[in-house]
Structure formats: C-alpha cells, structure tokens
C-alpha cells in the first residue's frame, strides 16, 4: 500500500490550489429528454406503483422508474446502478431527496425491460437490490441519519431499524392503497440530522440516562465553560473533585434537570450518555411538511420509549405497523395521518392505534407545553 500522491505538495499547500468552485453544474447531468423539456412539463401519471411518466408541451414523455435504496451504499452498488443506467437510460440516473434512485427513459417500450432488469437483481443474502415502488398514496423510502455506522452521539442505529421497518412496510412501498402518502423518517438522536420532526411517523433515538462524568480527564479534554453553557436546562455547574488525593476541575450535573439531549457530550467528550438499557426509540406521529389542505405540522410523541432490540427492533416495527393499519382503515381519501388524528381527536387516535397514553406524552417543556393542553370542555369519551 504505497502512498500515491495526487500532485498535492504538503510543503506548499497553496501551490496550484483550486478552491471555492462549488458543485458540478446541474445541466451537465440532464438526460436529453429532460434538457429539452425543462420548464415545459404539463402533467404526470402513475402507470403502476414506482413507475410514472411526465408529458411535456412538445409531446415528449419521460418515463421514470423509482427504486428504493439503502442510503448507505457501496461503490460496488453504485457501479451496478451505473451499469443499469448505461444499459437502459443512455447513461443517466438521479437520486431523490428520500434516498430513492430514479431511472428515466424516453419511451414506453423501454420501461418493461428496465423494470424486469431491476426486479431481477438481488443481493447474496436474498434481499432486493432495486425494488420498484415508493410513489403515490403509499410509503416511500425512509430518510435517516448515520447511527452506529458512523456517528458519535446516536441513541440507536439508523440503517438497521430502517431495514427492519421497510421489510415490515414493504407491501406499502409497492402499493397505492393508503389514503395519502405516508412519510417515515428516522433520526438516531435528537440532534435530528434527519429532521424527522415533521414526518407522518418518526423514529427517534433517545437517551434516558444523564451523562457519565470522566472527572480524571474532563478538564484536559474539554472547555468546561462551553460544556456548562451547552446545557439547555442549566443542569451543569463547575465542581472540584478529588481523585487520588488530587483536586481536579470538573463539573457536576443536576440529574433531575437533565433532558438527555447530549448537547454537553457534543461539546465535551468526557460526558458520554450512551447506555445499553438507557438508550432506545421514541415514536412520533402526525407531522407533515406539505402545505396541501392543512398547514405543515410537527410530529407528536405517541410512544415515549421502546428499547433498542437489535438486530430487528420488533417492538418498534410492530408499533409502526399498527399505526399504519389504523390509519389505512380510518382515514379519508387524501387525509394525511396527522389530519386524520386531528379530525378524530388524539384521544381517539390512541384508542384506534391501541397505544397506551402515559404521563410522558403530556408536554412539560417550557412555553409550548401550555398550548398543547386542552382548553375546552369538548372531548370525546
């Protein structure tokens, strides 16, 4: 494994340096039918779940086949995507915001061979490489974060719970039977790199134990004032601790005030929160980002805690499945999960979804909490 230089000279880092050039320009990558018809599309229609076409003013059509993908993806897999793109799509592909891959062709006769090719490819372990679906009134791919594969603050894994959940929801990835589309998202801690807080169903990793304090190293590893300032509830204060007869500077945590956000750990590696029993999953529901019919909404906490049950998180997936089925049965056509819950009332939502309502679900965090209490005599028995 000999080092091969790119041409970079570490002694003269500024020599021939190129910076601030930004991303590649988008129009380098448009397939011809897209480049030609951009801005003149008239309408689209689904041929089957995962397959749709757009019609342009010119009469041109572009047919898109959407497939699911694990966003954690190897170059081997990407090369296979390229091979398919070259075989069927003149060497172009695109990815969606929700980690799907879209293969586009410019005529209908190219659609069937493409679908057959995609559906025929499987991993050695038996799973689909390129399942077609994820459109319309169904469930599309889960957007998610890194989890245990590459992050230092997660309270759960990301890729694993996503795989387990999509296996359970797979039929709805390939179907249009739901009242409206249903978006599932996962964030492995409440930093929410995945911004799951406006999803129909959100899977959120959460810690439940206050930080451990590595007193011996804390002052050497961290800027104590930054760790103190990082705490949103002012639960951390400076403290002198005696270790082996030596007084060292460290911190003390008022554990009753800890909201387990991990912000201190972000600032100070000597305050880890991760714990096998303490960590697990919160389920939130009823959020949306679209402005369609009703305004965008935040997701609400509907299950306060489910333990991490690696490798397949059975309680988490069963809970999600239960919510999806209750929604599928109860909601009106076009009604999003949150709109349905608001129409029938949250008291009815818990009944229909067979979820227990515990004290954890009543907001007690600052001002917004008050606005979630019931200020009317109206409720349902």
């Amino acid at each position, binding site marked *: 494994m000999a080092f091969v230089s790119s041409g970079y000279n570490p002694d003269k880092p500024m020599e021939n340096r190129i910076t601030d*050039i930004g991303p590649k320009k988008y129009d380098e990558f448009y397939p011809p039918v897209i480049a030609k018809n951009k801005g003149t599309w008239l309408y689209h229609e689904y041929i089957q779940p995962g397959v749709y076409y757009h019609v342009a003013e010119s009469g041109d059509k572009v047919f898109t086949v959407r497939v699911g993908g694990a966003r954690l993806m190897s170059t081997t897999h990407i090369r296979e995507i390229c091979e398919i793109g070259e075989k069927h799509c003149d060497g*172009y592909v695109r990815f969606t915001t929700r980690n799907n891959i879209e293969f586009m062709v410019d005529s209908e006769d190219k659609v069937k061979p493409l679908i057959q090719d995609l559906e025929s490819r499987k991993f050695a372990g038996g799973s689909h490489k390129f399942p077609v679906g994820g459109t319309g009134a169904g469930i599309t791919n889960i957007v998610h974060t890194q989890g*245990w594969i590459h992050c230092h603050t997660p309270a759960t894994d990301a890729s694993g719970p996503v795989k387990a959940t999509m296996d359970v929801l797979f039929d709805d990835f390939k179907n249009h039977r739901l009242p409206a589309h249903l978006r599932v998202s996962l964030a492995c801690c409440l930093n929410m790199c995945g911004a799951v807080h406006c999803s129909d169903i959100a899977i959120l990793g959460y810690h439940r134990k206050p930080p451990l304090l590595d007193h011996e190293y804390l002052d050497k590893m961290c800027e104590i004032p930054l760790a103190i300032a990082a705490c949103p509830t002012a639960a951390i204060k400076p403290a002198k601790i005696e270790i082996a007869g030596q007084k060292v500077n460290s911190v003390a945590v008022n554990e009753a005030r800890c909201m387990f956000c991990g912000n201190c750990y972000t600032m100070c590696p000597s305050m880890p929160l991760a714990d096998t029993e303490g960590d697990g999953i919160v389920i939130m529901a009823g959020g949306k980002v679209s402005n369609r019919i009703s305004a965008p909404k935040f997701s609400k906490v509907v299950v306060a805690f489910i333990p*991490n049950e690696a490798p397949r998180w059975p309680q988490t997936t069963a809970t999600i499945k239960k919510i999806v089925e209750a929604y599928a049965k109860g909601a009106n056509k076009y009604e999003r999960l949150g709109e349905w819950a608001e129409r029938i009332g949250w008291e009815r939502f818990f009944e229909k979804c067979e979820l227990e309502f515990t004290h954890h679900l009543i907001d007690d965090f600052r001002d917004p909490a008050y606005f979630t209490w019931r200020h009317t005599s109206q409720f349902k028995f």
Partner: protein
Amino acid sequence: MAKHKTPLLDQLESGPWPSFVSDLKQQAEVRAKNEANVEFQIPQDAVEDLLGVMELSYKHGRTHWKHGGIVGVFGYGGGVIGRYCDQPKLFPGVAHFHTLRVNQPSGKFYSTEYLRKLCDLWDFRGSGVTNMHGSTGDIIFLGTTTPQLEEVFWEMTHNLNQDLGGSGSNLRTPSDCVGAARCEYACYDTHALCYHLTQEYQDELHRPAFPYKFKFKFDGCPNCCVASIARADMSYIGTWRDDIPIDQEAVQAYIGGEIPPNGGAHSGRDWGPFDIQKEVIDLCPTNCMWMEGNKLVIDNKECTRCMHCINVMPRALRIGNDRGLSILVGAKAPILDGAQMGSMLVPFIKAEEPYDEIKEVIEGIWDWWMEEGKNRERLGELMKRQGFQRLLEATGLEPDPRMVKEPRSNPYIFWKEDEVEGGWTRDINEFRKHHLR
C-alpha cells in the same frame, strides 16, 4: 472468509428491502479480491473492520465512534468530519475513518460517467462506502485517513471540477427538489437558484464565520418535497399570484372518470367513482371553488395555493403564470428549545437572475444574526429571543399581515420613543402642577 463474525448483522440480510449488510459484505469481498488492481490508499480490509465494529455496536447497543477532532483541508473550516473508532486495536482498518461531504449537483441528476469517476476516486483513496445522499443533500464519502484528505480534495478540484460541501458553523450545502427539470408544479427554477446562491456564497460555505449552522433549501411549490419549511433557516417555496388556469374539458374528463384523479396515486384501492365535490371542492381550505353547471369556478383572490386541487386534477388545473417564491425563515429541528417551523418573511418575490433582491434579504439577515446571535444559536432562536420586529429592521421589510397567523393577543408592545408624540422626556414638576403629591 469474513474477517469478523457478524451473527447479529447477518439477520439483517433477509427480508425484501435492500440490505446494507449484504452490500457492505459484497464491498468487502470486492476489495479483498481487488480484480481492478486498485492501489488502495487506506487499509484494504477497512470494510471488514467496519462490519466488525458495527457488529460490536449491535452487541453493546452503543456506538463505537469517538468525537471528531480537528481534521480538514487547508483553508476550509468545513466539509470534513473527523471520525475515530474507540476500539482501534480491534478494528485497525477503521481506526481513522473520516467523512467527506461532497457538494451534490442540483436535483441529484448524474451521468453514470461522472458517478464512476467518483467511485474510482473513493475506491482508491477511501473505503468505497458512501451515503447517496446525506440528510442535508451532500454525497457523503464515509471513511478515509487524515493523509488522504488533501489528496482527495486535490483530485476532486483538479480532475473532477468538484468541491466539498459544508459542515460546522457555516452555510450548509444548499439543496433543492427536482424542480422544473421534471415537474409541472415548479414555480421557479430551483436548480438555477440553488446553484447560483451556492456559488455566490462559497466563502460562507467553506469558512465557518456564523454563530451556528445555516441552511438554504429550495422547494419549487408548496408541496415541499425537500421539506424546506421544516428544516431550513431560509426556505424558498415557489408560489404564484395570478389565476389558476382551468381546462374545463379536462375537468369533465376527471368527472367522467376518463382520467384518474391525482395522477393515479390512489390506484391500490377502490375508492369509488371520482366525486369532484367531495374530493376537491369540499376539501378546499378556503372554500374558493364551486361548480356552475358544468363549469368549475375558482375565486382566485381567495385561494391560498395549497396545491390540493392541482394535485388531484393536474391535467385540468395548473400553477399560475405570474410566478415567484415565498421566503420563510427560522426553521430548525427541536434541539435545543423545541422545533420551529419556518415563519413567513417575504410573501412574494420574483426569482430571476441575478437574484439581487433575494440576496439583499439574505445578507440583511446574516448581518443581524452574526452581530446578535449567540454561540450555537440558530436564526429561529434569535428571532424568538429578540422578536420578529428586529428581523424586519434587519431586512428593511415592511410589516404585512401575511407574515402572521394572527395579530398578537397581548398588548405588551415595546413602543419606541420616536413612535410616541413628544418623546419620553417629561418634567415631573410640570406634571405635579396638576397632580398633587
């Protein structure tokens, strides 16, 4: 033969959904065989060790990655996330396993030729493991060593004309929806605006000078496919201010069942024949549409452009022609003080190159936030702390009822002295002439 046994991860190979475990295993095998004769610049068995450390996390229920540490490329403060394994002796192949954020093209369209070049580079100088894409939008290269960072950057900038994305307290990599490239709902060219502003603000993107992260996201219409309203400090949502064009013949075709509603998005269940009254007119949030005989009528002045009727009948109804965008500001995820949705700041602005009006709003906001924002305070939090009025002052925008859901329900107005006739300087003795002590 796998380097580490992974009995827990192996259970994630079954089931229909694409298995990341199977993918990582095939990658480990491809690297072990190395049929392409790559001169790997990081350990050949890195992916074996990645599977190994992941398995250990599955056993412990805890991550085995440590804090970042300061790594990066010269002159940039973002784009690289340092990552070290906390069991380097057990898994030396991933002891140093840094992330690079690579600025994705607008709309995430690619030529396979280009994707292959990215793969070649990442196989050679990294693990070959990626995210396509990260939550913010970047192409994520997962796993390389410190000496390779400059080498990857050099090759990207010199050979691929490609730059890194943002991380840390800077402008994060902007991202957008598919937009006008392949969507009839796009009210402006999201790709053009996203690209333009990304290029305009390269300095802000690469060199952290902000109190905290700052995100731009571009949604072509109020359907908000990139979720800008939930997660962008500045969210650009396409809209229009004239009438929805109606094709009455197509309306009749929907009513007659010749065209499936919502583009056939509900094909998986028998919902009965299409009922325009129930499915469109009664669901209109402002009750601004009705039938007059066989004619659909829209009172456009009362329309709030929620997109429902257009989504249901895309062949009969279209977005208007006087198009532009709304700017909403201050959205963020819950940490620390609770989640915030974007708040309407500019109800309508044209999106035309060179976008000077839009840049004026951006720069006014940045000046204020950089002056007043505390360390790790997002724009939305500053808005809450100092008030919407300060945002108006910073941007020079006039107040408009479209900015609020409702007027305030308390009268605690912070009047300024120059708003009150005669100012605040008064003479107590003069007052006492008429009001005895």
